């Protein structure tokens, strides 16, 4: 792989959740030491259940949040500690699409102003030039230019998401971070938006960081995938590898839990015991050990390393750590 567009090293972010009595502060470790990279033109997906830290990761990569530890590199530049002013030219290159197309568009702005807002911020184009570009962008995402004069509330969820995508596209970014872009949409609309995202990627050579809880959607759109559990990456792999041969017990359980729209299929299902532990008070050792079907003694005390077990394939599980496993056999 050539220079990755995004490289994330040991990213960590905590939030203060409770200023306890007597100075006992409680922190939520939303993201705890994750590393991955995304190549140019690639779609990398972060997948996991609620509270796994995938959205926080997206906001760390776009520097809406600043990490407590670790580094974010964009296009060979370390952007971890850049100020708002230093970040501004870089933001032109990385735009976001949000989950909720109802809340992410200012209800008091016309569609043309919504779509052209990044242009207003990053270019010196005149109002007329921006309007013209905005109506072209609307056509690109499958809306009509006459929609430009309307307000967002006049559109359906799918159409609003198209407006959000047009807005992200307006400044020709190289990276689009899409945080659950289709999970608020109905299935028939969901596929329209997914197809649009794929077409735009081909057309503009976009790189996507795609964040989702839906494993079927992720399989459809991704090249590579990272699976997160309680703030940590447990496995990264190419799409084919991950779905054909999941290594981490959590990935295996997750994949087997997805209901498949095919009643003729009967599968062995791994049903995990218990609930997700609280990220404020994560389990010791491996975070997954409380629910893991193949939990060993060592998992309860020692956190597994995120090892490259095969080329470009990382897993954080003692089962694949030769040192640990050979030690067990001895």
């Amino acid at each position, binding site marked *: 792989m050539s220079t990755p567009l995004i490289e994330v090293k040991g990213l960590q972010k905590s939030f203060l959740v409770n200023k306890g009595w007597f100075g006992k502060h409680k922190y939520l470790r939303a993201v705890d030491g994750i590393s991955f990279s995304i190549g140019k033109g690639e779609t990398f997906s972060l997948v996991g259940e609620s509270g796994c830290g995938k959205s926080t990761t997206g906001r760390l990569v776009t520097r809406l949040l600043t990490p407590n530890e670790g580094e974010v590199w964009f296009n060979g530049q370390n952007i971890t500690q850049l100020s708002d002013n230093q970040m501004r030219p870089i933001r032109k290159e990385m735009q976001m699409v949000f989950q909720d197309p109802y809340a992410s568009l200012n209800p008091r702005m016309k569609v043309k102003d919504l779509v052209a807002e990044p242009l207003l911020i990053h270019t010196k184009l005149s109002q007329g030039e921006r309007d013209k570009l905005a109506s072209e962008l609307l056509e690109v995402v499958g809306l009509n230019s006459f929609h430009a004069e309307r307000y967002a509330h006049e559109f359906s969820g799918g159409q609003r998401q198209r407006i959000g995508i047009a807005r992200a596209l307006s400044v020709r970014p190289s990276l689009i971070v899409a945080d659950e872009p289709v999970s608020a949409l109905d299935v*028939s609309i969901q596929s329209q938006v997914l197809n649009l995202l794929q077409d735009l990627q081909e057309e503009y050579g976009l790189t996507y960081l795609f964040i989702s*809880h839906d494993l*079927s959607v992720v399989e459809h759109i991704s090249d590579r995938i990272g699976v997160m559990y309680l703030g940590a990456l447990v496995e990264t792999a190419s799409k084919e590898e991950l779905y054909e041969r999941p290594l981490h017990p959590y990935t295996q359980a*997750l994949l087997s839990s*997805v209901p498949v*729209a095919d009643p*003729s299929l009967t599968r062995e299902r791994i049903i995990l015991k218990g*609930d997700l532990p609280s990220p404020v008070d994560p389990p010791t050792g491996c975070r997954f050990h409380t629910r893991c079907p193949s939990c060993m003694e060592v998992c309860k005390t020692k956190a597994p390393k995120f090892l490259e077990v095969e080329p470009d394939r990382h897993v954080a599980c003692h089962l694949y750590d030769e040192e640990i496993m050979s030690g067990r056999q001895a």
Partner: protein
Amino acid sequence: MNKLLEVEGLKTEFKRAGGNVMAVAGLDFHINSGEVLGLVGESGCGKSVTSLSIMRLLKGTPGQNAGGHVKFEGKDLLRLSENEMRKVRGKELAMIFQEPMTSLNPVLRIGKQIEEPIRLHLGFNKAKAREHAVHMLQLVGIPRASEVMNDYPHQLSGGMRQRVMIAMAMSCHPKLLIADEPTTALDVTIQAQILDLMKRLKEERSMGMLLITHDLGVVAEMCDRVVVMYAGRVVEEAPVKELFANPQHPYTQGLIRSVPKLRQKVKRLESIPGNVPDLSHMPQGCKFAPRCAHVMPECMTTEPELLAVGGEGRKSRCWLTQQSEQKGGSAV
């Protein structure tokens, strides 16, 4: 098989400033005892309104009943007095919702909330009701059941709350459980637990179930038969395997094809163009015609009936399938 619930020509309208609109426009389906019927459709198709209409829980919503019959074991629920209905609701007919937090009282302990319907419907005394409540919590797989009895709803996780709701719903041995998007708010691994639980309970108690969902995966895993709704109408009805193997109505076909399936490996998803019509601006003929790839002139003017097509227990509301049926040919 005897019919447990029969819905005939059910109509529910919404009060709107510019005149009432039909949210549910003449629904017909039935549920046999011991069977799971899936009610599938996208948001706004009227599937949740249907469940509230059956349970007569429309009070406080803009909806009101506008005709039809809901026969539960032969008696018409829509003709019962409020008092008689109360005896049916929660005992023979129970319901669980998408967000359990909205149907649990936040200031009452879990135990009290489960005991109440037990004492009311089964006439148990306090001690016996408590014993039964703990038993129900154990049945739905809640660890430390007797401790959870003293918890408040906010102390439990989403999955636990849904288990509590199921325990409450099951506590009086209902003959029919209506589950409205019971796992939509839950994570996949928790969803798998809850679906597994519901399947087990249904089999142990041979209870009928109306499962309302937008998730075709859940339908495929849980249901025996499926009713597909679009714009307040039934557009297709079929046994689950046949529905997925050979969908008749173009809407069902589009819906099934537009869902990305695990391990399916397609380059592009098929999609249904356009949007669901607004209730107050319904197309004149077939409500799906403006989005349909096979639209014909008669589709724009006259709405087709829901008629039997292509095989045992199958119905479709489409001119195309009905034409090919008449020609003696098999389905599209």
